[in-house]
């Protein structure tokens, strides 16, 4: 930790207080803040649209260490145990539709994964304002300092992104059935 924790704590508390001012709206959407103990905010995201019951999708721990000299870290965790999740343990890849333009012409839309990482590795949200993005070797040219105080990396902004791509569009559980023939069905055993 290289930023005085007193400074990061003040900013952390501002972020949490601002979230709590609109907690009813967040709850209705499925964004539940379970714990906020500096430097971590633990949030559980619930998909509210599936019928007949809502489904708990995942949890995240947003870490505000060194905030806001560094952006917050976002780690996906088990919603009950807070154990870190690997990419293949996430319920989906948080896809986002983006336009494809070739030679200046719009040619269609494509789905891009917001969550990146190898299946067995810790996944991360590959967007500006997320510590893991800016620390990634591929993004050293896209400094956090270009985004600080622009709205990126705020708790509200991160939760909006996670809710938009993580729970808002979930409508049901994806089910895969594998029928297996186990024998013959007999109408009535002969006497």
């Amino acid at each position, binding site marked *: 930790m290289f930023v005085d924790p007193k400074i990061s704590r003040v900013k952390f508390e501002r972020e949490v207080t601002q979230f709590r001012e609109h907690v009813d709206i967040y709850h209705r959407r499925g964004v539940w803040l379970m714990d906020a103990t500096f430097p971590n905010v633990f949030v559980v995201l619930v998909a509210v649209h599936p019928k007949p019951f809502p489904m708990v999708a995942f949890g995240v721990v947003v870490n505000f260490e060194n905030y806001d000299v560094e952006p917050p870290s976002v780690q996906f965790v088990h919603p009950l145990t807070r154990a870190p999740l690997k990419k293949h343990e996430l319920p989906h890849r948080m896809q986002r539709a983006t336009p494809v333009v070739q030679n200046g012409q719009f040619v269609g839309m494509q789905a891009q994964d917001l969550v990146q990482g190898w299946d067995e590795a810790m996944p991360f949200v590959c967007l500006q304002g997320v510590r893991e993005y800016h620390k990634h070797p*591929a*993004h050293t040219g896209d400094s956090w300092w270009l985004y600080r105080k*622009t709205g990126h990396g705020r708790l*509200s902004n991160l939760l909006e992104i996670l809710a938009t791509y993580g729970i808002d569009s979930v409508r049901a559980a994806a089910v895969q059935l594998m029928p297996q023939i186990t024998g013959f069905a007999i109408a009535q055993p002969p006497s």
Partner: protein
Amino acid sequence: MAAESKQALVFVVEGTKVPLEVNVNRPLQSVLGEVLEKADVVGDKDASKWYFKYDDQTINDPNRKIGEFGFPSGAVIFVNLKAGHVG
């Protein structure tokens, strides 16, 4: 000429609350610059990078007049930054 009628609204810019009294005949989009300024947002204020949400719904046509949305007095309108480009 339409009579000027004001309405109190609360804009929330990435967590920061900005109460504002607005002319209901203005397009919603036209208040964005003022709201971002008051929320102390620095950098790019390009309107195409922001969107409005009310009652959990994205407002798809922010160029409509504020009065046409039928917001109650003191309505909370979220102003959110669109997700950036995926790296």
